[in-house]
C-alpha cells in the first residue's frame, strides 16, 4: 500500500468509488487511494434499487442527478464495463391538488435546466403502464430519459475506470485513526499501514459518523432499514418488448419498477426502523435485515390499490437493508468545517442516483477550491452543532416516513423542536407566534392575533398567514416593531492584522472610522458570492461582523480557512454570547430614546453607523441599519440581558403600539427594498457586478475574487439581476421559476414573494442583460403556469432610503 497520496477516499461504495474515479480522471490519476474495510458495495450500495431519475426536490440536486445520467450512459464506453443502464422513463403521479402543485414546482424548476419533462393525464399514464389503476389520479409528470442501473455493476465500472487511471484500491483495509500533522497534511492510519495525504474524503456511508468522530466531528447521519420487494416473474412483463417506466406514487409512498421479467416495489413506511442507532458494527457487510412486514403492510396495500397485480403476485424476495439518512434526507457533501482539506461525501439515501454526479462535482470542488454548481442544499455545513445525535434520531423518525410527502415551502415540521431558543421565546409564544426553525433556532414566522389559529396551512400558494403578515408589514411601516434576530452569526475579528485581512477577504472597503458600518460581500476566487457580511468597526483593531444565521458554519469556515497563520488576526465566534433585537419602524427612535442613556438623535446616531450604548441597564452594540427599509436599530446585546432589554423596549413602546414582528414580514419587506438574500441571489453563480450591490466592489484594492471581477468587467456580464412585478392572484414566485421572453428561456428567478407595503407580487431573477431594462415584459412560470411579469425599478419601496435615514 502507498504511504503517500494526494487524496485518500475512505469508503468503497458507489459514492466513494465515484469520487476516486473522478479525482483520477480530472488529473490526480495515481495520486488517489481508496480504502475499503470490506469489499466494494458492501455497505448500502448492494441493496440499492438502482433507480436513476431527474426528479429531485431542489434545483441543484436535480443538476447532480442530470450529471449522473450523463455519466452512466458514457461509462461503459469509457471503462469497457457495462453498468446495466436501461432507459425506462419515469412517471410521478399526483392524487391531490397539493401534489399537483408540487409537480408544478418540479416541472417549472426542471424547465430552468431545459430538461425533457411533460405533464401527462391519467389516461396517458394508463396507456404507458398497463398494470396501473388510475382511479383517483389527477395527473403526473413524465421524464422520458430516466432509467435504472445495476448498482454493483455501476460501482465496478467506476472502479475499473479508476484503476485504469492508477487509483490504488485497498480492500479489506480498515481505517483506525486519522490525524492532521502540524504541516496540515493528514495521516490516515490503517491496519495495513499509514498514508500521508493532502486531502481526505469521508465516503464511509453507514460508518461515516465513526470516521467523522476520528477527526472530532459529529455528523448527522443515521442508518435506517429500507425495504423493497421483488415479485415473482409475471408473464405479461416477460412478453413485453419494452421496459415499463419507473412509477413513483408519492401519495402512496411507493415506487415500482421493472426488474427482469418482474417488478420491484419500494416503500417508505410510516415507522422506519433505525438500525444500530449508536453506530453500525464495523464487521457489518452486505447483510439483509429482518424485514418488518407489520410495518410495511400499509404501503404494500397502497401499492396493491394502485397496481392490483401486486396482490396476485408472490413475493420472491423481500430485501431490507440499511441506508443512511440525514435530518432532511439530503446528503452531507463538501468541506467539513472547521477542518481544512477534509471532505464529506456521505449521508446518502439515494446514492445511486447521485453517485456519478456528486463524484464529478466534489472532485472538481476539491481540485479547484470552488464547486462548479452551488451545492449548498447538500453541503454538510448546513447543519450546526444543534444537529447532534439526539436531534438526528428524532428528526429522522419524522423524515423517513415522509420522504414522499409533499415538501411545502412553508412547512416547518415539529419533530426535534425546539432546539435553540432566544431568551424571549416564552414571550414570543405568549404573543401567539407561529414558529419556524432556522439553523436550529426557533424563530417566529408571524404572529396571528390571539384567538386565531396558530398553525400555518402548508401550501405552495398564499397561506392563511398572508393577511397576518400583511398586518405586520403595515405595522412596521406605520408604527414600530421588534424582530428577534438573535440567531444572526456574529464574529469578532481583532488583532493588528484585522483590517488588512478583512480588506483582503471582502470586495468592499473596510471602514476607516470607528463606528462606521460597511456592507461587505466576500467572494470566491472567481469573484462569485461566497457570503455577505455587515462589518462594524469598533476600533482600528477590532471589527464586529454579522452574517446570516443559516450560513454560520459555511461563512466562518471560509474565514477560518483563510486566516493568516502568523496570529495577527484573531477570530472569535460570539454568536452565542450576543443576541439581537431589531427595533424598527417610524417610532423606533422614540422608543429607543425613552430607554437609552445615550443620545440617539439623528444628528448623533446617523444611519449606517454603529455605537456602543446603554439601553436601560444593558450595554449594547447598536447598528443603525436594518433589512426591512424603515428607520431602525439592530440592538446587539449580551444574551443574558435579553429579557430585561425586551421588557424595557416593550414598556417604552407600549404608547406606540409596539409589537413583535416575524420572519415572513421581514422577508416580504426585504424584497420590496431590493435586499439580496444569501444563497438566493448571492450564490456561487453570481458576482456582485451582476447585482444592485455592484457599488460595494472597490477595484482599487486587492481582494479575493478581484481577478474574476476584472475578467467579468472586461467581458461584460452575461446575466443581470432584475426585480419583476408579477401578475398573480394567489401563487407568488419563490425562486427557480424559469423566466421567458416569448418562447425563449432567458433566466431564472432567485427568490420571490408578496410585498405587502407596495401590494405587489415580486420576483428577483437573473436574466440576460438585454432583458433587464425597466418595463420589459416577460413571463415567469410558476407551478407550471406562465404569468406575465414586468421588469421594475429596484427597489420598489422607498428608493431614496428616506425612511431609513429619517
Amino acid at each position: 500500500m502507498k504511504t503517500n497520496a494526494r487524496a485518500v477516499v475512505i469508503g468503497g461504495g458507489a459514492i466513494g468509488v465515484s469520487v476516486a474515479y473522478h479525482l483520477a480522471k480530472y488529473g490526480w490519476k495515481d495520486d488517489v487511494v481508496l480504502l475499503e474495510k470490506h469489499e466494494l458495495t458492501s455497505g448500502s450500495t448492494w441493496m440499492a434499487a438502482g433507480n436513476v431519475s431527474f426528479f429531485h426536490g431542489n434545483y441543484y440536486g436535480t443538476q447532480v442527478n442530470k450529471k449522473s445520467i450523463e455519466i452512466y450512459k458514457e461509462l461503459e464506453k469509457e471503462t469497457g464495463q457495462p453498468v446495466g443502464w436501461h432507459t425506462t422513463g419515469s412517471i410521478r403521479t399526483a392524487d391531490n391538488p397539493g401534489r399537483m402543485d408540487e409537480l408544478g414546482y418540479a416541472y417549472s424548476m426542471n424547465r430552468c435546466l431545459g430538461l425533457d419533462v411533460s405533464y401527462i393525464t391519467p389516461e396517458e399514464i394508463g396507456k404507458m403502464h398497463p398494470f396501473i389503476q388510475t382511479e383517483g389520479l389527477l395527473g403526473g409528470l413524465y421524464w422520458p430519459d430516466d432509467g435504472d442501473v445495476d448498482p454493483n455493476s455501476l460501482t465496478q465500472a467506476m472502479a475499473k475506470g479508476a484503476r485504469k487511471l492508477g487509483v490504488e484500491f485497498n480492500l479489506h483495509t480498515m481505517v483506525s485513526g486519522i490525524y492532521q500533522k502540524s504541516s496540515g497534511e493528514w495521516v490516515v492510519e490503517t491496519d495495513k499501514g499509514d498514508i500521508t495525504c493532502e486531502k481526505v474524503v469521508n465516503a464511509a456511508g453507514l460508518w461515516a459518523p465513526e470516521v467523522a468522530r476520528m477527526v472530532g466531528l459529529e455528523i448527522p447521519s443515521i442508518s435506517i432499514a429500507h425495504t423493497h420487494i421483488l415479485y415473482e416473474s409475471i408473464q405479461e412483463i416477460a412478453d413485453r418488448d419494452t421496459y415499463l417506466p419507473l412509477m413513483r406514487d408519492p401519495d402512496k409512498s411507493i415506487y415500482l419498477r421493472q426488474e427482469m421479467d418482474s417488478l420491484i416495489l419500494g416503500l417508505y413506511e410510516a415507522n422506519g426502523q433505525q438500525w444500530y442507532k449508536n453506530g453500525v458494527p464495523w464487521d457489518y457487510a452486505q447483510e439483509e435485515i429482518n424485514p418488518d412486514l407489520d410495518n410495511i403492510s400499509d404501503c404494500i396495500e397502497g401499492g396493491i390499490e394502485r397496481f392490483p397485480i401486486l396482490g396476485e403476485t408472490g413475493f420472491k424476495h423481500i430485501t431490507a437493508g440499511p441506508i443512511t439518512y440525514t435530518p432532511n434526507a439530503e446528503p452531507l457533501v463538501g468541506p467539513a468545517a472547521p477542518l481544512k482539506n477534509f471532505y464529506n461525501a456521505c449521508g446518502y439515501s439515494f446514492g445511486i442516483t447521485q453517485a456519478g454526479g456528486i463524484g464529478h462535482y466534489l472532485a472538481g470542488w476539491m481540485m479547484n477550491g470552488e464547486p462548479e454548481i452551488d451545492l449548498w442544499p447538500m453541503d454538510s455545513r448546513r447543519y450546526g452543532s444543534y444537529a447532534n445525535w439526539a436531534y438526528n434520531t428524532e428528526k429522522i423518525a419524522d423524515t423517513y416516513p415522509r420522504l414522499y410527502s409533499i415538501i411545502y415551502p412553508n412547512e416547518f415540521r415539529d419533530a426535534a423542536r425546539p432546539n435553540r431558543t432566544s431568551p424571549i421565546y416564552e414571550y414570543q409564544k405568549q404573543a401567539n407566534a407561529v414558529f419556524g426553525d432556522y439553523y436550529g433556532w426557533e424563530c417566529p414566522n408571524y404572529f396571528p392575533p390571539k384567538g386565531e389559529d396558530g398553525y400555518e396551512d402548508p401550501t405552495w400558494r398564499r397561506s392563511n398567514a398572508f393577511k397576518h403578515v400583511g398586518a405586520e408589514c403595515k405595522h412596521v411601516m406605520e408604527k414600530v416593531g421588534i424582530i428577534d434576530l438573535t440567531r444572526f452569526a456574529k464574529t469578532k475579528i481583532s488583532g493588528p492584522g484585522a483590517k488588512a485581512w478583512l480588506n483582503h477577504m471582502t470586495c468592499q472597503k473596510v471602514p476607516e472610522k470607528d463606528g462606521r458600518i460597511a456592507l461587505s460581500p466576500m467572494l470566491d476566487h472567481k469573484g462569485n458570492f461566497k457570503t455577505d457580511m455587515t462589518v462594524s468597526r469598533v476600533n482600528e483593531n477590532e471589527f464586529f461582523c454579522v452574517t446570516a444565521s443559516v450560513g454560520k458554519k459555511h461563512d466562518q469556515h471560509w474565514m477560518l480557512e483563510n486566516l493568516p497563520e502568523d496570529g495577527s488576526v484573531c477570530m472569535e465566534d460570539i454568536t452565542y454570547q450576543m443576541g439581537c433585537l431589531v427595533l424598527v419602524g417610524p417610532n423606533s427612535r422614540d422608543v429607543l430614546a425613552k430607554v437609552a442613556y445615550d443620545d440617539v438623535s439623528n444628528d448623533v446616531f446617523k444611519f449606517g453607523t454603529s455605537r456602543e450604548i446603554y439601553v436601560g441597564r444593558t450595554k449594547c452594540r447598536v447598528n443603525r441599519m436594518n433589512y426591512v427599509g424603515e428607520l431602525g436599530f439592530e440592538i446587539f446585546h449580551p444574551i443574558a440581558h435579553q429579557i430585561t432589554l425586551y421588557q424595557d423596549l416593550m414598556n417604552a413602546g407600549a404608547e406606540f403600539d409596539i409589537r413583535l414582528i416575524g420572519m415572513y414580514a421581514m422577508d416580504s419587506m426585504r424584497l420590496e427594498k431590493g435586499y439580496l438574500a444569501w444563497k438566493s441571489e448571492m450564490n456561487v453563480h453570481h458576482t456582485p457586478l451582476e447585482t444592485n450591490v455592484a457599488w460595494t466592489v472597490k477595484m482599487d484594492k486587492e481582494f479575493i475574487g478581484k481577478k474574476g471581477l476584472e475578467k467579468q468587467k472586461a467581458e461584460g456580464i452575461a446575466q443581470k439581476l432584475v426585480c419583476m412585478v408579477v401578475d398573480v392572484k394567489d401563487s407568488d414566485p419563490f425562486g427557480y421559476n424559469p423566466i421567458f421572453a416569448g418562447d425563449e428561456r432567458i433566466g431564472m428567478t432567485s427568490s420571490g414573494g408578496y410585498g405587502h407595503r407596495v401590494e405587489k407580487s415580486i420576483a428577483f431573477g437573473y436574466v440576460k442583460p438585454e432583458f433587464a431594462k425597466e418595463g420589459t415584459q416577460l413571463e415567469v412560470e410558476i407551478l407550471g403556469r406562465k404569468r406575465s411579469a414586468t421588469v421594475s425599478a429596484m427597489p420598489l419601496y422607498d428608493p431614496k432610503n428616506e425612511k431609513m435615514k429619517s
Partner: protein
Amino acid sequence: MKICVCVKHVPDTAATIRIEGDAGFKDSEIKFVASPYDEYGIEEAVKLVEKNGGEVVIVTVGKPGADATIRSALAMGAERGILVTTDSQFLDATLTAKALKAAMEKDGMPDIIFTGKGSVDTETFQTQYRLAGYLGMPVVNDVSKLTVDGGKAVAELEVGGGDKQVIEMNLPCVIGATKGLNEPRYPKFPDIMKAKKKKIEQMTLADLGIDGAAGAVILEKLEPVPERSGAKMIEGSVEDQVTELIRILKEDEKVL
C-alpha cells in the same frame, strides 16, 4: 389428511454470524428464515392438502422469535402452527426430535410428517430419522419426488452417485424434502395478511416434560472460518497456466 411440517428457524444464509461467548452467536440483529429445504416440505404438504383436504400444521422448536418463521410458512398456506420454545441456540437433535414428537402427540398424530433434508444452521441431518424412530414410522430423506395414494407414499430419492431409488411405504411416514420436489410458492401479500390471523400455539420444552439441558451433544466452541485472503496467481502462457492449474487441482487440492 393431517400433515405436520417441521420447520427450523435459522439465520439467513447471507447473514454474518458474530460469535458471542465461547459457543454462541449474536442472534438479535440478523435475519432469520425458514431453513430453505423445509420450504419444499411446506409446499408439498400444502399441495397435498389442497388436493386431498385436511390441514397442514407447522411444528417448530426454537427460540421465541421463531414465530416469525412459522408465520412465513402459514403465508404459504399452512393452517396453524405450534412453537415449542427453548432458550438454547443449539438444541441437541435428540431433544429436538423428542420435542417434535411430544408436540405432535399432544396435537394429534399426523398422516405425514415433512421435514427438510437438513437444516442449514447446524447441518446435523438426523432429526427426521430420530422423530420417525420415536414414532415408529418409516422415514426417507432427500426426497425429490413424491406420490401419496391410498394410504401409501411412493418417494423418489437420491442415494448417491446420481442414482435414485423409488421407495414405497405406508402412511404415516416421515419425508425429508429436497430441491426438485416442487417449486415452493412465493406468498402473495393477501396470504401474508391472512397468516397474521392464523393460530400459533406456544409451549415450552418443560411443558412437554423435556429437560433442555439433557442433550448428549454439547457445543463447546464456535469459531469463525477465516475469509480467503487473495488468490495465488498462475503465470505463464495459456498452455502453461492451464497445465499448472490442472496439476494443482489434481495434486495439491485433489479436487479433480
